């Protein structure tokens, strides 16, 4: 990964912090965006756009309003939703995210079945539930960060997350 030199301000604006944020979040941001858009090419564009916006607005980051990670995911989320809106307006067709089924072939059959089941279950979930799970599981955001990204209270974010997990269990036929 390339070292990023940024204007040294507080939070992600500082060069070291932004570099650290970029290194630790790039893959997760991409995974979240790609899962949301279900289009690898669009996900790449949106991920690049999200980091571009984050870098441009890094001086506006206010540490009192959340962590750098939640700030970055909020930017990525808005960019992804704007892309969804654009595609809905233009009626563009969805491309599929790269098929990773081949990766499952090398795994233990039970584990491969389970992962496939979860992937399909995730795809069946409502977009809102899928997003909450992706932000939590892939983005590894705390409930406070989740609330910041989803623009809701922390307790509401916790409730939404728990319900989304329950629905995922339901569609996957998994019992607790």
């Amino acid at each position, binding site marked *: *990964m390339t070292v*990023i030199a940024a204007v040294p301000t507080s939070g992600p604006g500082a060069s070291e912090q932004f570099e650290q944020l970029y290194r630790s979040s790039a893959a997760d941001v991409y995974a979240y965006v*790609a899962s*949301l858009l279900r289009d690898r090419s669009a996900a790449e564009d949106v991920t690049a756009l999200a980091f571009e916006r984050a*870098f441009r607005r890094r001086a506006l980051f206010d540490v009192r309003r959340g962590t750098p990670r939640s700030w970055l995911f909020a930017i990525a989320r808005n960019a992804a939703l704007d892309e969804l809106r654009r595609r809905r307006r233009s009626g563009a067709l969805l491309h599929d995210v790269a098929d990773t089924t081949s990766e499952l072939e090398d795994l233990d059959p039970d584990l491969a079945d389970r992962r496939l089941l979860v992937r399909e279950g995730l795809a069946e979930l409502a977009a809102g539930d899928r997003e909450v799970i992706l932000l939590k599981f*892939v983005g590894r955001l705390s409930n406070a960060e989740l609330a910041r990204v989803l623009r809701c*209270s922390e307790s*509401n974010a*916790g409730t939404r997350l728990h319900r989304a997990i329950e629905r995922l*269990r339901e569609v996957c036929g998994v019992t607790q």
Partner: protein
Amino acid sequence: MSRNELTAAEREELDALDRILAREPVSERHLELAALVDSVRAGAPRMDPAFAARLDAQVAERAARRRPRAVTPHLARPGLRRIALASGGLVAAAVAFTIVISSGVLNGSRHTPSVESGLGAARTVPRTPASAAPATSKRSVGPTIAAPTAGAGAGASNFAASPALHGAARLVHKDSTLTLATSPATMQSVANRIVAATERTGGVVQSSNVKIAGAASHASFTLAVPSGHLNRLIATLSALASVRALNQSTNDITDSYNQEQARLTDNAATRSALLAQLATAATAAQQTSLQKQLNRLEARIAAEHREIDRLANQGHTATLAVGVVAGASAAKHAASAGPFTTAFNRALHALEAILAIALVALAIVLPFALSALALWWGVTSVRQRARERAMRTA
């Protein structure tokens, strides 16, 4: 139960989820959740290495373009920037206040009313209670202007007349009466300032009478001052105490002056003729008679010279009678008659004007700013709702 409230078991599961994501050990009953997390994460799309390299290059390029800004690292921090802005604002306000105060002090110390040189022309001094007093070409008593709360800049109408007598020039004698009111305690101070101000303007105190006796205290002065400085002196004295009355009159003495000049010219011509006759007189009796005529004529000429000088002096010198009476209501004004107080009051007036301008500007700008704010808020809300709608329909 509120829809946002979770049961203890649910909260425990969310805590376990945080531990799983932090790669910390969890109890056996949360292993299923750990497996679920693992499956979701394992199935998440991964970045293509080519795209990762492109992203690295793109971010590195953006960073390289912005790098020169790093030479001011301290100002780039929002907190320090705010402090710097606040400090700059304070300094600017202090500078503006100093300028206003300084200009006020300068104006207060100068305090020079305009004096015009046009003969017989009338010009009013701004903010002067007596400015409405009409000029009179003949000796007349001007209207008495009651001024119970005269300000520091109170003065008098200016009927300046140059004593020059060439062409259409007029010679005007000016006579004024000024009545001031001050507290008994400041009577002596005001009297001293009247004398000092008169001397500063090149005038003289022809007579004075100051009596300090409590409520019966009073002072009176007869001042002679160069006509061109009369208005400045009146303005200065008006700032010393509260002006009770101001009476100004003018007397055009040009005709008298010209008549005396004409007589003098005639007599000078007669004298020349008599001297010529005297030089050619044949008899002693003729010489004696001519000499007597010459003597009488020279006496008249001397008297005419004195009258011309007196008239010219009247035109050049104005008289100002100043009376100072005791008045409790004037104590405050008398105590604040100092030049700094005057300057401070002027500065306050300037600040009031600035504040008024700022309020007007705010009244103009505020509706636009509020409209822009409302528009921005509306656009942001609509866009956010559209995003959420896009999420729901994805």
